[in-house]
């Protein structure tokens, strides 16, 4: 082992990596459990890459082959059904932890100076992950997926000519067809990863360079210490990873993802159509608006409002400038809690309605 290390060091001196590992510390306080959500996300991303690569070996994109290849995977390939289920369950759990990660940073004001860029990068990663979810949902080419994609790609149409152009760009025409499937497949396995991984690298670099943010209240009171990452925090990370992995595999075994019915492009859109759970709060918001508001289409007003709110969340570190000095206005302190209540409330309403 030592000889191998010497051989390697002679060629590439990785001493700086060792130095970094030895010196890395993580703040330790009564809320430090929130730091583990980032690690869970990295684990789930790894699961996505491994299972996605295996699925890619059997999946065949195309109007006449996509559904059939999924049927082949789950009925003939050994453990194929579980590989697909682990991919789908881990994707859903990943989205859940992304929202947990986002809200924990909002609640503890982790976005405050000098971590604005980490927030912005993380926010784009969230949007890209949702795009992964949206594009991946269509790939099995079943009726539910096609209908959900029709509804989802229809939404930008409410934003005038630019929105209509986005709809056509996404669909590759007026309707959801085999061309849409090809586009979504290309996006899911190549286009989105091309954007996602460099941004993730930058996000991780910033997190390592700046360290974890300590919640302002705890920082002011000095009620925290530091723990070495190696091995103290790493062991804790490993324990949480084990439980998460166990949960994903258990869900895949107990409740495997179903194949559904093959998409029929001529079938009418079902009346009680619902998107995936992580888009339900947006879907329910759109349904709340009346058909017409002061001569403007209600859907256009709703979409514009949603885009404005997303933009505000994206630029939040610059809206809450006083966070670093503990001078956040009352309304801004309340905003993350209201947003969480709104997202949970609307999602539940969407499920039950």
């Amino acid at each position, binding site marked *: 082992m030592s000889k191998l290390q010497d051989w390697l060091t002679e060629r590439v001196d990785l001493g700086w990596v060792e*130095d*970094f590992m*030895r*010196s*890395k*510390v993580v703040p330790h306080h009564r809320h430090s459990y929130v730091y583990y959500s980032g690690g869970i996300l990295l684990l789930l991303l790894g699961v996505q890459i491994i299972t996605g690569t295996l699925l890619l070996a059997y999946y065949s994109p195309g109007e006449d082959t996509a559904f059939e290849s999924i*049927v082949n995977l*789950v*009925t*003939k*390939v*050994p453990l*194929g*059904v579980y590989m697909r289920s682990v991919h789908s369950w881990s994707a859903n759990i990943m989205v859940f932890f992304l929202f947990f990660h986002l809200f924990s940073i909002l609640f503890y004001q982790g976005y405050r100076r*000098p*971590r604005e860029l980490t927030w912005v990068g993380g926010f784009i990663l969230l949007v890209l992950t949702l795009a992964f979810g949206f594009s991946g949902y269509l790939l099995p080419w079943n009726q539910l997926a096609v209908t959900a994609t029709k509804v989802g790609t229809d939404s930008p149409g409410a934003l005038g000519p630019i929105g209509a152009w986005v709809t056509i760009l996404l669909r590759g025409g007026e309707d959801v067809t085999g061309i849409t499937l090809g586009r979504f497949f290309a996006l899911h396995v190549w286009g989105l990863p091309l954007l996602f991984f460099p941004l993730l690298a930058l996000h991780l670099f*910033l997190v390592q*360079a*700046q*360290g974890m943010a*300590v919640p302002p209240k705890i*920082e002011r009171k*000095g009620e*925290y*210490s*530091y*723990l*070495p990452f190696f*091995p*103290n925090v790493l*062991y*804790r990370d*490993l*324990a949480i990873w*084990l*439980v998460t*992995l*166990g949960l994903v*595999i*258990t869900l895949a*075994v*107990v409740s*495997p993802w179903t*194949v559904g019915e093959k998409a*029929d*492009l*001529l079938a009418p859109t079902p009346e009680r159509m619902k998107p995936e759970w992580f888009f339900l709060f947006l879907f329910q918001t759109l349904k709340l608006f009346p058909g017409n508001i002061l001569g403007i289409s209600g859907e256009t007003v709703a979409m514009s409002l949603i885009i404005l709110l997303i933009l505000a969340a994206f630029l939040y570190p610059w809206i809450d400038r006083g966070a670093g000095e503990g001078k956040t206005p009352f309304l801004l302190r309340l905003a993350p809690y209201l947003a969480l209540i709104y997202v949970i409330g609307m999602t539940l309403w969407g499920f039950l309605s």
Partner: protein
Amino acid sequence: MKLLWSFLAMIVPATSFAAEAVPPPRLGSLADRILFLFALWLLIVVLLVTLRWKISLADALFRMMPQTKKAQSKEAREEYAHQDASPRMAGGESRNTQNPAV
């Protein structure tokens, strides 16, 4: 052809399409699945207990280190927090030599 097929699907009784139905997924028997989950969680519990012991040991070793007490003092913490928030690319010194905790 697709249009014709859809039209036929409307007028032909559903039973005619039994052959077209998706075969059941290859799940394995219920007993196999239960046994697999039992073995999986047994392994996870054993690994968790081992990790718990490793965490206690690592934390105890860290607390025993002579630098630790000094490093956890208010002054050292403030000094470190200041460096922690100053990215190295902005000209800050490497944490390797400045870190008071290790």
